[in-house]
């Protein structure tokens, strides 16, 4: 009797655990913040699939990738979400990721995109964000930024650990080419601090620690939408604003390849395109039938997206980083 009961209990347990697999997504912390996209994405995914979706956050997407590498064979990650075109080639080199086998024709991006491993899920433009109540004459170009008074301070992210930091590095490289190093030396006195991730930088900025922070052209929309606050603005630069296409991929080692694919498929869906603008504060990779939220329509938007070829970035990444470290370190 007892034995049958035990077997019964175990089979229920086994059934329970077998019927509810967990798909684990590693991503950056603002995605899982209380105001972030994670909760709604989880709801959308779990409604359609009999599985639990679990988000694990690191202070940046690169940090999440390092976490997977550090955990080696023991990682629990099935999906890595949040790298961008500047960092995805670096991730590919690790050999940890598997092809998505999805048709990407559903998406429309400002630049052409094709990749068999990484799936794009939103895009944005980097910009320096400021409080127009405090900064009356914001710089409108890199030259103007470097020429600001000495006590004008900016917060940027570390290109080694955060995709926005890498974005700025490539942005300045695109604009200045061989003279990028000299520009960094001129910018250096204005840098208050270099944070590991975007969240830290933005938190410091909101606390009034600096005049400007490296963020996105869409950041003001968050303050207008949730706080009805119109003072936070993003500076469009004459030289153009560098873009970011955020991407996700599944790991080769995943125990649930079908679920992982289903998740990547969700990222390309209309439902996801509705969630992303007002949670992750980025442009979706396809316009939902209902259109973009109103705050997005009134946002000033750069005419064109500066973006380096991913393969070229990867070829030069170490050289760029060394150049940056040297310029900053002097």
């Amino acid at each position, binding site marked *: 009797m007892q034995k049958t009961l035990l077997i019964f209990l175990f089979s229920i347990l086994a059934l329970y655990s077998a019927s509810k697999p967990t798909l684990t997504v590693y991503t950056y*912390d603002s995605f899982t913040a209380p105001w972030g996209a994670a909760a709604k994405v989880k709801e959308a995914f779990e409604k359609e699939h009999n599985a639990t979706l679990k988000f*694990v956050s690191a*202070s940046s997407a*690169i*940090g999440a*990738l*390092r*976490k997977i*590498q*550090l*955990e*080696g*064979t*023991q990682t629990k990650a099935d999906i890595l979400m949040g790298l961008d075109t500047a960092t995805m080639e670096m991730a590919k080199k690790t050999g940890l990721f598997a092809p998505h086998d999805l048709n990407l024709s559903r998406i429309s991006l400002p630049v052409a995109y094709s990749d068999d491993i990484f799936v794009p899920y939103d895009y944005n433009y980097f910009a320096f964000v400021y409080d127009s109540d405090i900064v009356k004459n914001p710089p409108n170009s890199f030259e103007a930024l470097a020429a600001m008074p000495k*006590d004008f*301070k900016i917060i940027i992210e*570390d290109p*080694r*650990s955060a995709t926005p930091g890498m974005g700025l590095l490539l942005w300045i490289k695109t604009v200045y080419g061989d003279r990028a190093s000299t520009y960094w030396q001129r910018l250096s006195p204005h*840098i*208050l*601090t*270099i944070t*590991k991730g975007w*969240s*830290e930088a933005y*938190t*410091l900025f909101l*606390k009034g*620690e600096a005049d400007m922070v490296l963020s996105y052209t869409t950041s003001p929309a968050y303050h207008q939408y949730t706080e009805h606050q119109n003072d936070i603005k993003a500076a469009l630069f004459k030289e153009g604003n560098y873009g970011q296409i955020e991407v996700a991929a599944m790991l080769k080692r995943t125990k649930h390849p079908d679920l992982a694919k289903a998740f990547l498929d969700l990222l390309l869906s209309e439902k996801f395109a509705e969630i992303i603008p007002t949670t992750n504060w980025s442009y979706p990779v396809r316009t939902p039938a209902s259109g973009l939220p109103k705050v997005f329509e009134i946002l000033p938007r750069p005419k064109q997206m500066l973006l380096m070829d991913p393969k070229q970035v990867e070829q030069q990444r170490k050289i760029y980083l*060394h150049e940056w*470290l*040297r310029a*900053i*370190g*002097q």
Partner: protein
Amino acid sequence: MRQLRSLWAGWLPGVLAALGLLGFAVMLFVVLLRSAGTISFSSIDPQTLHVVQFTLYQALLSTILSVGLGLLLAWALAHQPRFRGRSLLIALFSSSLVLPTLVVVFGLIGIYGRNGWINQLLSWVSGHDLGSYLYGLFGILLAHVYLNASFASRAFLHAFESIPQEKYKLAKSLCFGAWQRFWIVEWPSLKQTVWSSAATIFLLCFTSFAIVLILGGSPKYNTIEVAIYEAVKLDFDLPTALKLALIQLALTSVLVLLSSSFRSSITNLKNSTARIIWQESRGIIWLQRGLILLFTLFFVTPLLSIIVEGVDAGLWQIVQRPIFLQALVTSLAVATLSALLTLLLVLVLSSAKRNFDMPTRLGRSPWARLWSLLITLSGNLYLAIPTLVMGLGFFLLALHSALPRTLWAWIAILTANVLMSLPFAMAVIYPQMMKISQRYDKLSFSLGLGRRERFFAVELPYLRGVMAYVFALSFCLSLGDLGIIALFGNESFITLPWYLYGLMGSYQSQDAAGVALVMLLLSVTVFVWITKLFGGRDVTH
């Protein structure tokens, strides 16, 4: 015959432990070297060179400032032998050893940060503040001086107070001024302590990690330790990390060898009550009082700010968070285990070393001096193997191992903590054991007491105090350390310092304030409570 057997039992465990520790160091070196394989050291890039230079530079400056300030403070305290709260103040200064580094950094940010007390005061008085000035070289030096000057002053004060009264009387009759008195009477007696403290402080600052990680602010101000951490955590660039680790290992080995002639012992905690009787001139008195007051302010304000901010932050809510409780339980377990292991090891090592050093025991046997040296070396491994280098070694082992990562985390953190506490523990336990032997060996051997009887009846009563001190010290050091956990910490293995670092890193200052306060209270309470409860006699002050 029976005595010989019991002696055999008295040195074998110690020798085995020492060989185990040294073997561990060799293994670590082999792991690093084998993984390094193809790295070429012929070309050291300018970035690495810059890091090495800065590491040496900040350590040198920190040492000069800490020793200078510590000496001034000790001089002032030595010549102000009577004022209310003096012994409390001295106890407070020597407690800097057990204050968690990260908590001190948090306190310093509360005072000198952009929104710290100094800026608040300045903008209230004059409408302007100093802006952000803490991060960078200034912050690193400030924290190093905070932790080291106060502790060094304790050792210097002891040296001052050990100067025979006769010398002072003679100097007085010769009408020496304060300057002459210092150079002719005091400096010769202080020299030894000053050099040995300076050597130790230099080594500690050279391998500084947590302080530089937080207060450095940018790659411009990286020490080798932080550069190793960043190479692993930010770039996952193991070849660079290895290269840095081997450079670091080579440099610390050279430094340890160079300084070994200075470093007689790490801590000098003996009690002394000799008070210097000297009627000072008015100017000197005010100078001394000013120094004491200023340093007290410098030392106490960061601690106050932690208390004020922590209480403000809504402590009750913070301590109820599951993640806090998880970190607390892990930290308490880590600290308790580390302290127990340290105590066990130090007893075994010191006891064996004592047997080799005592002429009445094994001191005359042929290899005694070598064994004694080996044991000393094994107890001081920490100085030669910086935490992050050790962490990297463990990490490489874990990377290719099937054992769960959490198990490796436990092994790595316990090893690191024990090695960190051992030099201090040896410096406290060993002299005491020697003293007991010198005093009671003849008696206890003539009574034919066995090993166990000798330990419980003769030694334990005298060792209890120092043992409690070592346990408390090791517990607090382990509780507050942010080192190896920075490489091994994850969602399922969080300690309080790692949690606090995360909160500070993401600028959740409210929660950070609460956690910092808990850590401060925990360290102080445990330290005072354990040394009082089990110590019996006051051995620390």
